[in-house]
C-alpha cells in the first residue's frame, strides 16, 4: 500500500513555569492509504499532542521543536499558515473527544457541517446545503432533514458525536483523526459510534488515526497499534502480531490491566505507579520505575527503538531476537 503520512523524529515541547514539558519526544511512524492506526497510552503519554502537532493545533505555549511530517509529499510542519489551513478539515480532519463542548452552542449544526465545505470552496452554497443533509443521513441521524437546522443542545451526546463525524467527513478527507471519540459518551452508545466510524471508513475510503487509552478497543478496530509511553513510542506493530506477541512490558501491562469478563479471578493486574513527570523524565528507559523486569541497563541507558520483525518495532533492552527475555 502506498504511504500517506510519514512522521520522523517529531518533538513537541511545552513551556511551563516549572520547565519544559517534553510531551512528544522524538516519535517516528508511518501510515498508509486506507490504514487504521491506533495510538494507545495513558493520559499524558503524548497521544493527542502528537497528532495535534501535525495540524499545528497545539496551544500557544507549545511548539514543535524538531522532526518532519510528510503528508503526500509535503512536510506539514514547514507549511505556511495558509497552506496548513487549506489542509485542515479538507485533507485531514479531526473528531474531538468531547462532543458536548466541541460544537458551537449557538450555531445550527447544518451550518457547522457546511463551514468546512464553504471554507475550502469545495462546492457552492446550495450544494453544500444538500451535502450537509446527506451527511447527517449517512451518520444516522433520524429525521435528518429537519434536524439539520437544530442547535447542538437539541442533540444527545451520541448524536452530537455523529454530527462531529459528519463535519469531519464533509470534504472527503484522506485522513480522519479520532481523538478518543467515545471517551465522553455513555457506554451504551460507544459501540454505535465505533461501528459508525468503521462504516464511514469503508464508505469514504479514508485512513484513520484512532487515539484511545482502551487497548481492547484498539485491538478490535485498528490495523496497526502504536503504544506510547511518556512521549515516546514503546511499541509499534501490526495488530495480529501485537495480539499474538506483545513485546514491551508496558504493552503487556496494558493488556493484563483490562477487564476480561471470561477471565479468571485475580487475572486483573494493574500497572503499579503513575506516568512520570515529563519535565524531568526518568533516566534510561522512561518506563523502568514501573517495570517489574527492570535491570541496571534499563536505569542507565535509553533503549533503542528498533525493528524486531517485519513492521514490528519496540524500544526495550530486554527484547532480543524478536523475543522478550526477562
Amino acid at each position, binding site marked *: 500500500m502506498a504511504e500517506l503520512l510519514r512522521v520522523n523524529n517529531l518533538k513537541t515541547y511545552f513551556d511551563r513555569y516549572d520547565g519544559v514539558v517534553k510531551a512528544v519526544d522524538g516519535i517516528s511512524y508511518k501510515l498508509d492509504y486506507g490504514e487504521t492506526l491506533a495510538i494507545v497510552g495513558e493520559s499524558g503519554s503524548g497521544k493527542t499532542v502528537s497528532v495535534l502537532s501535525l495540524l499545528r493545533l497545539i496551544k500557544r505555549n507549545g511548539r514543535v521543536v524538531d522532526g518532519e511530517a510528510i503528508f503526500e509529499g509535503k512536510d506539514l510542519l514547514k507549511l505556511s499558515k495558509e497552506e496548513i*489551513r487549506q489542509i485542515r478539515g479538507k485533507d485531514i480532519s479531526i473528531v*474531538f473527544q468531547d462532543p458536548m*463542548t*466541541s460544537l458551537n452552542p449557538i450555531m445550527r449544526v447544518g451550518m457547522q457541517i457546511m463551514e*468546512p465545505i464553504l471554507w475550502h470552496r469545495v462546492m457552492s452554497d446550495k450544494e453544500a446545503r444538500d451535502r450537509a443533509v446527506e451527511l447527517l443521513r449517512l451518520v444516522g441521524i433520524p429525521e435528518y432533514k429537519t434536524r439539520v437546522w437544530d442547535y447542538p443542545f437539541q442533540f444527545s451526546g451520541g448524536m452530537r458525536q455523529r454530527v462531529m463525524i459528519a463535519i469531519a467527513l*464533509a470534504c472527503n478527507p484522506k485522513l480522519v483523526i479520532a481523538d478518543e471519540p467515545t471517551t465522553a459518551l455513555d457506554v451504551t452508545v460507544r459501540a454505535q459510534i465505533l461501528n459508525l466510524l468503521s462504516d464511514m471508513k469503508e464508505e469514504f475510503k479514508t485512513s484513520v488515526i484512532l487515539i484511545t487509552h482502551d487497548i481492547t478497543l484498539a485491538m478490535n478496530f485498528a490495523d496497526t497499534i502504536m503504544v506510547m509511553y511518556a512521549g515516546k513510542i514503546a511499541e509499534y506493530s501490526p495488530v495480529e502480531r501485537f495480539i499474538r506477541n506483545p513485546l514491551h512490558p508496558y504493552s503487556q501491562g496494558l493488556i493484563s490491566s483490562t477487564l476480561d469478563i471470561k477471565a479468571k479471578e485475580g487475572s486483573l493486574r494493574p500497572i503499579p505507579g503513575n506516568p512520570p513527570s515529563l519535565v524531568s523524565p526518568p533516566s534510561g528507559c522512561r518506563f523502568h520505575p514501573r517495570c517489574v523486569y527492570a535491570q541496571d541497563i534499563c536505569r542507565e541507558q535509553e533503549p533503542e527503538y528498533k525493528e524486531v520483525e517485519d513492521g514490528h518495532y519496540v524500544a526495550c533492552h530486554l527484547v532480543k531476537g524478536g523475543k522478550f527475555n526477562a
Partner: protein
Amino acid sequence: MGLVRYILRRLFTIFVSIVVVIIITYILMWLAPGEFFNIAQFQASGGRVATLTPEQLQVLIKGFEEKYGLNVPLWKQILNYLKDAFRFKFGPSFSNPNEPIEVQIARRFPVTFTLAILSMALAVIVGIPLGVIAALKRNTWVDYITMFFSMAGSIIPAYTIGVIMVLIFSVWLRVLPTSGWETPKQMIMPVICVALGPMAVIARFMRSSLLDVLNQDYIRTAYAKGGTDRAVIMRHALRNSLIPIVTIIGPQLAFLFTGTVWIENLFRVPGLGQLFVNAASMRDYPLLVTSTFILSLSVMLMNLLVDVIYAFLDPRIKYE
C-alpha cells in the same frame, strides 16, 4: 407565546419589588434626621433666624402637612403614594409646589435620556473593539496600554476627567463651550465624560469574555475545519463572547439615566440628576421617593430587556 407570558410574569415581579423598595425608602426617610421644613425655612430666610413665633410656625407646619398628606400614619402615606405612583402621578414636590413631579421629570427626562443613550452608544462602539483588540493581542504592549487606560477610566471619577477636559478644550484650546445643552458642540464633553466609565467596564469585560471563548473547544474545532483567523473570530468567537456583554450594558444604562448627576452639574445640563440631588439635600420627600421609584423601575425594566435580548442571541435560552 412563552415569551409573552414570561414578560408578564416578570412585570409582576417588578411590581412587587418596587413596592418593597418604596416601603424601605419611606422607612429610611422616616428614620433619617432633619426635615424639609427647617432647611427650607432656614434657606428662605436667607440664613437668618426665622422671624415667626412658635405658634405661627405650628400653624404653618400643620397646613403644610395637610397639603402633602403627612398627617396620616406612615403606612397610609406609603399606600397613598403607591396608589398614584404606578399611574405616574407623583403629586407636587416640597420645593416646587406648583408643578407636579411628573411634569418636572417629563421636562428633564429627554435631556438625561439623550445624554445616557449617546454616552452608552459611544461606550459600546469604542469599548467592544478595544476589548477585542486587547484579547486578540493579549500580553503584548497593545493589550497592556488598552487595559491601562481602561483601568484608569474606571478608577478616575468622571467629574475629574470633566474638569481636566474643560481646562484643556475650553480654557486652553478654546474649541468647546464649557456648559449648556443646546448645540452638538456643547454635548461633546458631557457625553465623553459619561461614556468613559461604562466604556472601560465594557472593554475589560469584552476582553475577558473573548479570551474565555477563544479557549473553548469549539474554537479549536473551527480551526480544525480550516477556518481562517478572521472566519473563526467573526463567526464563532465574537457572537458567543458578546452574550455576557449584554448583561452588563443593561444595568449600566439604567444607572446612566439617573447617575449622570455630577456631569450634569459640571456642565450645567438640565437633566434629572440635578433634580434628584437637590431632592436628597433638601429632604424633599416626595421628589426623593420618586427618584428611587424611577431609578429602580428603570434598572428592573433594563434587566428584563436584557433577558429578552438574551433569548434572541442565545438559542439555548427558552423562557417558559
